[in-house]
């Protein structure tokens, strides 16, 4: 699956990257948290950011989302992150935060619909998109339930659906970029697999995806490229199978890690 998508990318090598990051550095309280980070993500590509705790993964994602100013360049659709008008940017860029606190009794459908806030497409179109996305992420049966009463995994799927809604249609905005901070948090195995499939699908429809993941197996199976961070520095960046090697992983996590061939797919799996 992975190699097939790489080939389709190879057919259009001159495509302008949706996200281009050049020499990004970031300091807070005199501590340098990120140093000299450069990469780009074209439409249709899934980039996984991996690394040990405290490596700066979430910080990097926050900077990409425009929450923190940084040194260096972050270009979205060729335009500097800070130069986008907020509302316009929201049509192109959707962000899934690590935690979400919503304490008000909105229904699942309403929360998902909030993803359409930046779009002026009208209630009928918005509602249709909400229904499609809820089907895609298997939360249609939760539609009328109240968000605060959901389980952790159900809340996470609802938030992901909201983010999907924001960049669902090419007709609304292009290029489109999704930034996901640990999207599989609180999801059971079945829903992890389903979510990854949904992410692959939406990427195929032209969305560039950057996600922070902890589960290396998910990165191995579903990411086109991987960026490995350690102490704020890029230790490796490139195609998934080239980056996630035993030596890189052992160095990255300071642990005895073995890669074994997946029995059914041309990918590897991690074991300790």
């Amino acid at each position, binding site marked *: 699956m992975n190699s097939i998508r790489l080939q389709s990318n190879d057919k259009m090598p001159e495509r302008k990257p949706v996200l281009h990051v050049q020499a990004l550095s970031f300091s807070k309280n005199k501590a340098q948290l990120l140093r000299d980070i450069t990469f780009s993500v074209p439409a249709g590509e899934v980039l996984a950011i991996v690394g040990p705790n405290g490596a700066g993964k979430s910080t990097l994602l926050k900077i990409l989302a425009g929450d923190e100013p940084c040194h260096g360049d972050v270009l979205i659709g060729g335009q500097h992150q800070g130069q986008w008008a907020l509302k316009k940017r929201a049509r192109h860029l959707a962000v899934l935060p690590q935690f*979400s606190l919503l*304490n008000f009794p*909105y229904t699942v459908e309403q929360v998902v619909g909030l993803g359409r806030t930046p779009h002026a497409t009208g209630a009928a179109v918005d509602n249709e998109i909400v229904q499609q996305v809820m089907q895609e992420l298997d939360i249609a049966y939760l539609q009328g339930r109240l968000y*605060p009463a959901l389980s952790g995994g159900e809340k996470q799927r609802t938030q992901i659906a909201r983010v999907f809604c924001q960049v669902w249609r090419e007709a609304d905005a292009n290029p489109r970029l999704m930034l996901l901070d640990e999207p599989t948090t609180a999801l059971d195995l079945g829903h992890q697999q389903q979510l990854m499939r949904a992410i692959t699908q939406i990427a195929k429809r032209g969305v560039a995806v950057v996600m922070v993941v902890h589960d290396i197996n998910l990165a191995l199976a579903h990411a086109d490229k991987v960026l490995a961070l350690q102490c704020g520095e890029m230790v490796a960046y490139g195609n998934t199978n080239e980056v996630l090697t035993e030596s890189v992983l052992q160095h990255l996590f300071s642990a005895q890690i073995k890669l074994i061939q997946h029995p059914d797919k041309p990918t590897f799996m991690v074991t300790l």
Partner: protein
Amino acid sequence: MIFHSSGVALHWRWLLSGALVVLCLCAVISISFGAVSLSLSEIGLWLQGKSSLQTQIIIEDIRLPRMLLALCIGALLALCGTVTQGLFRNPLADPSLIGVSAGASAGASIVIVLLSQLHWNMLGVPVVSVGAFIGGLIAVMVVYRIATGVNGTSVATMLLAGIAITFLTGSLSSILEFYADDEMLRRISLWRMGGLDAANYTHAMIAASVLIVLLVLLPQTAKALDAFLLGESEARHLGIDVDKIKYILIVSVAVGVGVAVALAGSIAFVGLVVPHMLRMLVGPAHRFLLPLSAIGGAVLLLLSDVLSRTLVAPTELPVGILTAFLGAPLFISLLRHRHEYGMR
């Protein structure tokens, strides 16, 4: 929830019309009940301009301005309560959290104690009310400045700064009371209880103009308020100019509650209980919640005012005592049952 959210959207016109009919009924009740009861036919005669002089005086000089003031103040308080709960992302927040009531109370005390020689009016508004309004505004401005840094306004800091300012202005009021004489103390405590007995057309018109401005302005922020509840950076990622919205909302609450407190003293729990109860009925979407809160607040204060005038007639209870007396148990029951409404 009684209505499903899509049901509310579907039947919105009927719902709004129904609420307005209830409001009109309460307005009629408010005019009809009091130390002297007026029958519907008497009110009908008055509407045609054929009533007796006594009825005309009771209605036009006493009950009508009072009814209008109660309606506007109730609507202002509930509207500001809804906004405050959204702003703090907490369904149990109250406008007094950002210091406006305490500031207004200190402002009133300052005028009563230090400027006791002044009995003049400003454009028909007693100087105590002006002092209260200014006190409320200053308190909110200080709270806002404390909570606003380079990274925008922190709602959590605002909450804590509001508590600090409430204590500070409270101690200021206490110092003033310490030096006040008996007559001043009586005036301060009467002012604090809140009441609509000083109602006149000027007061009602001031409250009405602020209410109309807020009723036009706030529903435009409904979408932003919904997004805001997800969190500030989430709202920004949905394209909302968070700092601008916060500024609009804080100024609205300061002016709205400031005017309400200045004209009617502190009337507790309307701003807390009304939005909360309506959220249970129609859900939290601000497009529906904001207008219905305004109507709900007006209804609640109209009915409370009728009770306050009739319970111990021919004298009357300050309406603030009544709303607090009814509101506190209601609030405690909300706290105990909030899980059932999907709130944590």
